[in-house]
């Protein structure tokens, strides 16, 4: 047997959703195997099955030719499988060593951990695999790139020969991605097998040996990377030729609708997250904020929307000047809408009904004549119309929001925020976690609003999203706007360099 992983006829259902259907997946030793597919195609589910986190409803798994029952991560680890998750699974208050050895620490006597030996092992490993970390640093203090190294070390420490990485690149700068790929190649040369999930075709092409494509829980193709191209993969992913981007017409711009001046903001740890940020957005214009996550975008949105009040500087929305003392409500009254980054905790009250969720953005609006009461009848009619317009799938507006799928929930939030005809719209990661079809749909709606004269501030960590929608692009790095460009003037690579802080005086990068 020359396959190290064989998953045969795997089926996994969650209630009515079939996440994987008769999936056959194999992986050769010493290869980097790419796994690609739209959102919700079932990639993560398949890999979680391989890592023992889910038990498949049907199908069997062979590791190195031997049939195995993977009932928990513990057994998976025993068979030499390691996984780096999409969302980091580290304990922030513990040190790097403690995190790495968490599963199986070296012990002195009884249950007492031999910390010296542990640190020694971690140092050795990090040298052997060229993954530099400070073993005694507290994880909470580390940047994402380093945290990812800790994750990889953790998997290797547990004896992983087969390493699964779920969307490791989504949160990295292009430079960090290069670094990661070097590491992966090195691991491969040392005989490890790697399964890599990514949404980015270019990455697939550059680093993998084989590719498996999932579409709606079904395998639609096994390919050798050398013998294929991006177009073929895309077609297999979606099942047909589809447009992958929206087309954008030029649009006349009007007055300035959103203006921020000299914004400064320190977070609760006293770290300066916004440093003298000034810019403006005109009616009918989409301004994209590009940047790696954690460079101040979240804080910028919080400050503009009034969620965070402890800042310096001014925000002007629709000609009304806001000081830090005016909160969200006043700003919303001036025609501000906001699609939040985090749909689960900020964008929706999951236990509340769709109607209650829908009402949040407009119950104080001018539309209501009555001062103290809510007209639920009217709200209901409007909510139904609005959700239907946005093709949200729902039974009735009384069902709780948690019963919607992620994509539908996202669409319902987008619908709610756009429905009022906002003067200014902040769209943070508007298509996060939704499939290509829905993404295109949301993008088209954004462009419609732009056509109607809304000033849109788009924040996204997906450079392609920024490139395809924005009229102007501002690049944020370390709390500053360090560059302004347009999609026509720059390539993704140029912007990537800016995002990595090329202007950084230390010149760390490159």
């Amino acid at each position, binding site marked *: 047997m020359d396959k190290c992983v064989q998953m045969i006829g795997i089926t996994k259902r969650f209630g009515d959703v079939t996440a994987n259907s008769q999936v056959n997946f194999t992986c050769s030793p010493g290869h980097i195997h790419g796994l690609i597919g739209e959102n919700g195609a079932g990639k993560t589910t398949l890999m979680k099955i391989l890592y023992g*986190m889910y038990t498949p409803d049907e199908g069997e798994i062979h590791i190195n030719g031997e049939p195995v029952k993977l009932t928990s991560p513990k057994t998976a*680890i025993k068979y030499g499988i390691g996984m780096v998750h999409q969302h980091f699974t580290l304990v922030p208050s513990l040190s790097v060593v403690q995190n790495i050895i968490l599963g199986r620490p070296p012990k002195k006597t009884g249950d007492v951990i031999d910390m010296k030996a542990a640190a020694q092992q971690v140092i050795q490993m990090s040298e052997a695999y060229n993954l530099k970390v400070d073993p005694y640093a507290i994880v909470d203090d580390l940047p994402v790139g380093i945290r990812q190294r800790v994750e990889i070390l953790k998997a290797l420490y547990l004896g992983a020969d087969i390493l699964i990485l779920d969307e490791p690149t989504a949160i990295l700068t292009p430079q960090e991605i290069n670094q990661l790929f070097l590491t992966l190649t090195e691991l491969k040369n040392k005989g490890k097998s790697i399964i890599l999930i990514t949404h980015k075709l270019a990455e697939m092409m550059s680093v993998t040996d084989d590719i498996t494509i999932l579409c709606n829980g079904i395998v639609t193709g096994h390919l050798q990377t050398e013998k294929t191209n991006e177009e073929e993969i895309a077609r297999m992913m979606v099942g047909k030729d589809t447009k992958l981007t929206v087309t954008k017409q030029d649009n006349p711009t009007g007055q300035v609708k959103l203006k921020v001046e000299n914004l400064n903001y320190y977070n609760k*740890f006293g770290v300066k997250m916004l440093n003298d940020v000034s810019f403006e957005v005109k009616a009918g214009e989409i301004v994209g904020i590009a940047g790696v996550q954690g460079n101040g975008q979240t804080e910028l949105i919080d400050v503009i929307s009034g969620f965070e009040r402890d800042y310096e500087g001014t925000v002007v929305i629709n000609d009304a000047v806001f000081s830090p003392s005016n909160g969200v409500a006043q700003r919303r009254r001036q025609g501000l809408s906001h699609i939040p980054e985090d749909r689960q905790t900020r964008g929706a009250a999951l236990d509340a009904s769709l109607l209650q969720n829908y009402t949040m953005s407009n119950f104080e609006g001018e539309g209501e004549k009555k001062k103290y009461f809510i007209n639920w009848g009217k709200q209901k009619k409007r909510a139904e119309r609005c959700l239907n317009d946005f093709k949200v799938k729902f039974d009735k507006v009384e069902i709780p929001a948690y019963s919607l799928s992620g994509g539908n929930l996202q669409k319902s939030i987008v619908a709610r925020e756009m429905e009022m005809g906002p003067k200014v719209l902040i769209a943070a990661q508007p298509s996060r976690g939704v499939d290509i079809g829905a993404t295109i749909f949301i993008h088209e709606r954004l462009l419609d609003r732009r056509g109607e004269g809304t000033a849109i501030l788009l924040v996204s960590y997906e450079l392609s999203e920024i490139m395809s929608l924005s009229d102007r692009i501002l690049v944020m790095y370390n709390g500053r706007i360090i560059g302004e460009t347009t999609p026509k003037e720059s390539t993704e690579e140029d912007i990537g360099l800016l995002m990595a802080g090329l202007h950084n005086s230390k010149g760390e990068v490159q």
Partner: protein
Amino acid sequence: MVNTWIIAILRLSAPILLCAVGSLFCDRAGVTNISLEGTMLLAAFMGVFGSYYSGSWIIGILCAVAAGVLASLFFALITLKFGGAELVVGFTMNVLLDGLTVFMLRSIFKVSGSLVSEKVIGVPSFTIPGLTKIPVIGGFVTDLNILVVLAFISVFLAHFIFKRTHLGLKVLSSGENPQAAATVGINVYGIRLLALVITGVLCGLAGAQLSLGYLSMFTEGMTAGRGFIALVAVMFARGSSMRVLLVTLLFGAAEMMSNYLQLFQYSSYLILMIPYLCVILLTLLQLILEQQGKKKRMISAREKTA
């Protein structure tokens, strides 16, 4: 004089300490269990029950521990397994267990209020002869019982477990990032269950100290808010077992002082408020200091970056 004070403080703080260390375990494992008060009460009852029927204080303690564990398992069943809200279940369990002890007291022993009987054998206290002569330390080692000693051992043991052992790491990770724990093969559910069992054991000992350690009787509602004070101690401690010890001793001292203050003819009602006011004031103090600390750190961090 100082000796007796010290002993009084140790004695008063022992049940709170045991309870607080127990609470620390489930708190670190990510479980908010506010049913300690009731758990301790049930344990106190079962301690007396065991001692009464067996004539042995050891069996009494074992019964108390078993009761503590059972109460914890019930909590675990409802919250971990059946998805009950921890806060609600914890709150309600206090009422439940209080009612249950009263019910059993009346149905089994046919008395209400208190169970006092010659048949209830208390935990004997001991004195280490040589050590009592040493001036200050002597105060710590006279007239103690095994439960008080266990209370103080338990803090240091907890400290050791969290700092040094794999179990400690497993508990901490299960509380702070269960996902992380799960993905390296730790059974988070199992660890939480284990933490709750430990909580149950320690609350059981705390209950035994109340009913068999210091007294040899059971009285309805004899925990008198100690379970909640233990919670406060854990909140103060922010995860450090040594701070739990400190805060608990502080409460013990406050309670002892309040007893003494009455000798000066202040109204007993005013003096009875002291321990509770202390808790509130300490809470305020800690929160204010914390906020100022945060502000200071923020300002200094700002200055550094500026």
